[in-house]
């Protein structure tokens, strides 16, 4: 029997996550992922005007903000029979593109980087660069005043931590620069989105902000600055880390897990929606970068298991049929997260899944050149590479929007389908930064009759299923080196590489009974 380690809370993620691992001979032998907070949004939506859904579900998460708004309006568009005009599609794409840039920068620099840097190495910086010297002065000032919160306390740096004073000081400067850049990305999105987090202008049928040409110009000039940062700082940083100090972790494929990948596809590149920036598809059992077989995605193959979740026991169901009652007394349950499976198989979703499904040449090239296996480091690389892809597409959308605006009859909204139908159902799919997201709605008597969402972190953070198969976080921890049980830094590195979002992952409740049994913890 190995030693059991509990990490609760996992910080620098969205939401409340507990990870337990069993460590034997310095390696993780088994793992359990538990979501420890629930709200229960779906019950609230029952009987409401269907148009409320996009606003309310946006509040699943304020970090990857508005991604649920997008999936929700797509489900509503389908249920209402709305045809979103090209102008509306472009505006949606542009504000969500801005969200991608903000989100990926925050994830790499502000949520993850502290796992890889020995911040205190800055004190040893002896260079003369005036900008870097300012960073050194700042950090040394904090140390001298005896207050380095929130940079400390921390898990102690290990053999994979970057300790070179020049590199660390540069990285911390980029941490501070990226803090400004993520604000700029939000500012850019807000030009059309209204405010952030939680954009206001995405509604069923299209968009509410009628754009003018000055706004497009302002958007574009902010995009120029962000593009420069992504290309000249973010991507080089990720490549330098991944192929430098972290190369041993990258080559060993630490945190690879099941290596099954799912993407729903996203971001229309043409008016007919024939061409997508990210393609949909499924790839199972990836060994390397050669011979990847991409199968078509069919949403009918999605089921959700509650075998180890705090819901009343039930057979796995498709989201349209989903209906869960909280049951906090189940002895073998250990999470509020359910276990979605595709064709009964646990999947990884997110940037790495998109890169694999797309057979992205830049990602696969980088992995080939350095012998990087799918895992934690590859996830960071995939995230940076797709940010570049999104930035390039955003220029295309700016051009398309400018062209569309000059044509007579320019439209941003399908006003003919604004009123909720008497009956209807719709599924909406979107690829947010964290991966495959689906919303399902049923409408009866003009009101919401059922609402379900299967979100990225539900796929990744899921507990075991009927067959006892671990979720992707759990599987990805198997074999991870933990030489010192007091300092499980590799465990949090692997978990954070997924960019967990637990508030998103847990939001369900039984729409029919709203039953909860009483029990107090204290």
């Amino acid at each position: 029997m190995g030693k059991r380690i509990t990490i609760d809370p996992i910080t620098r993620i969205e939401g409340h996550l507990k990870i337990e691992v069993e460590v034997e001979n310095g390696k993780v032998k088994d793992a359990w992922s538990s979501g420890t907070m629930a709200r229960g949004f779906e019950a609230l939506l029952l009987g409401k005007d269907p148009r409320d859904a996009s606003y309310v579900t946006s509040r699943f998460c304020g970090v990857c903000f508005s991604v649920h708004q997008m999936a929700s309006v797509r489900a509503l568009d389908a249920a209402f029979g709305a045809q979103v005009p090209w102008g509306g599609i472009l505006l949606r794409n542009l504000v969500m593109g801005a969200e991608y840039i903000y989100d990926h920068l925050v994830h790499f620099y502000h949520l993850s980087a502290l796992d890889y840097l020995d911040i205190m190495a800055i004190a040893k910086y002896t260079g003369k660069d005036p900008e870097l010297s300012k960073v050194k002065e700042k950090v040394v000032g904090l140390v001298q005043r005896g207050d380095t919160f929130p940079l400390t306390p921390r898990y102690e740096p290990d053999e994979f931590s970057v300790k070179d004073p020049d590199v660390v000081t540069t990285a911390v400067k980029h941490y501070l620069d990226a803090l400004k850049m993520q604000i700029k990305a939000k500012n850019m999105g807000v030009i059309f989105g209204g405010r952030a987090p939680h954009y206001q202008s995405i509604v069923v049928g299209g968009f509410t902000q009628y754009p003018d040409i000055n706004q497009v110009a302002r958007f574009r000039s902010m995009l120029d600055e962000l593009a420069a940062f992504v290309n000249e700082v973010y991507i080089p940083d990720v490549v330098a880390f991944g192929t430098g100090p972290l190369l041993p972790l990258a080559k060993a494929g630490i945190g690879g897990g099941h290596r099954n990948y799912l993407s729903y596809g996203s971001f229309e590149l043409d008016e007919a929606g024939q061409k997508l920036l990210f393609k949909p598809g499924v790839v199972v059992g990836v060994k390397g970068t050669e011979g990847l077989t991409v199968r078509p995605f069919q949403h009918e193959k999605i089921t959700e298991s509650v075998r180890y979740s705090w819901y009343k026991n039930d057979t796995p169901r498709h989201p349209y049929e989903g209906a869960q009652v909280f049951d906090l007394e189940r002895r073998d349950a250990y999470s509020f997260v359910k276990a979605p499976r595709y064709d009964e198989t646990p999947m990884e979703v997110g940037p790495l899944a998109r890169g694999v499904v797309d057979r992205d040449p830049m990602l696969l090239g980088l992995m080939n050149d350095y012998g990087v296996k799918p895992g934690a480091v590859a996830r960071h690389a995939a995230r940076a590479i797709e940010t570049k892809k999104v930035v390039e597409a955003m220029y295309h959308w700016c051009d398309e929007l400018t062209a569309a605006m000059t044509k007579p009859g320019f439209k941003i909204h399908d006003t003919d389908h604004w009123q909720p139908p008497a009956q209807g159902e719709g599924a909406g799919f979107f690829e947010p930064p964290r991966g495959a997201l689906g919303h399902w709605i049923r409408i009866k008597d003009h009101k919401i009759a059922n609402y379900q969402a299967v979100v990225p972190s539900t796929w990744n953070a899921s507990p075991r299923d009927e067959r006892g198969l671990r979720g992707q976080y759990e599987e990805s921890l198997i074999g991870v080196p933990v030489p010192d049980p007091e300092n499980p830094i590799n465990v949090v590195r692997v978990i954070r590489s997924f960019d967990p979002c637990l508030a998103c992952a847990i939001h369900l409740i039984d729409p029919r009974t709203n039953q909860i049994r009483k029990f107090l913890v204290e």
Partner: protein
Amino acid sequence: MAKSFDGLSRRDFLKFCAGAAAAFGLSDLFTSEMIAEALAAAAKKPPLIWLEGQDCAGCTISLISVENPSPASLILDKISVRYHETIMAASGHIAEKAREEAVKEGGYVLVVEGSIPSADDRFCMVGGHSFRRIVKETAEKAAAIIAVGACAAFGGIPRGTPTKGVPLSTILPGKTIIKLPTCPVHMDHLMGTIIYFLVTHKAPPLDKLGRPLMYYGMTVHENCRRHAHFDEGEFLSDWNDPKQRDWCLVEKGCKGPEAYSDCPIRRWNNGINFCIDAGAPCQGCSEPEFYDRHTPLYAAGPVTERILAKRAAGLIPRKEDA
């Protein structure tokens, strides 16, 4: 004043203070020198504990959205962030220990984001403890308590769910709680309130619901640029029509006449835009009725009927009378 403050040059420091006064509407109350003196006089950085319950972290993301003064200048230089799950380096028991130690020392600003489940404590657990217990323990020795966002201030969206989210005031009866609703919290309201407290060691003057009057003193409608269209009965019905681009959104469900916040003057995200300017109705996220008593959000419902009845009765002043 000392030549440098936390490794900042005096010039940078004064820039922060001037920026803060201007950006957060504090310049009527304090000069930048007053802010500078109050902050420099502190022997050490005032500690902050930020707790997240039934939240979406949207208020945290709002915090890191102010351009000037930058969030780094607040988080690293002006306050000592002893616990904040989304920001801090530490995880697990190391993080929990940091909170326990800060609580022992006392005298911190406590910020709470998210509601607290009242149906069953197990709907929100952190580090093996119920969130309710953590909040109660942490509130004991707090110098100031700020409820950020609609959820912590009034229950917000989780109030209507089966987990029955309740606001901070429900589990801390008798405590003074500064409430900063809106969904998420307005970044300027939050930064400005923290700086107000650091300068005066007091809560700003509050309305009867606990919201700072300096930010929540007037309705959205009173300052709305579409006010005249409301008076004229020009209500937007089609977002595609350039002629209607600035018309009143009341028939799209706008709650502006019943919502108290300075959004139309301050706008959001460094003054770039805000809901109504983006053609989206105000959903009254500053109010205790948000969300479940504000539905339907995008259609004329009970709130709209009330607003239009008041308008017909001449109870809402016209722009020229205001």
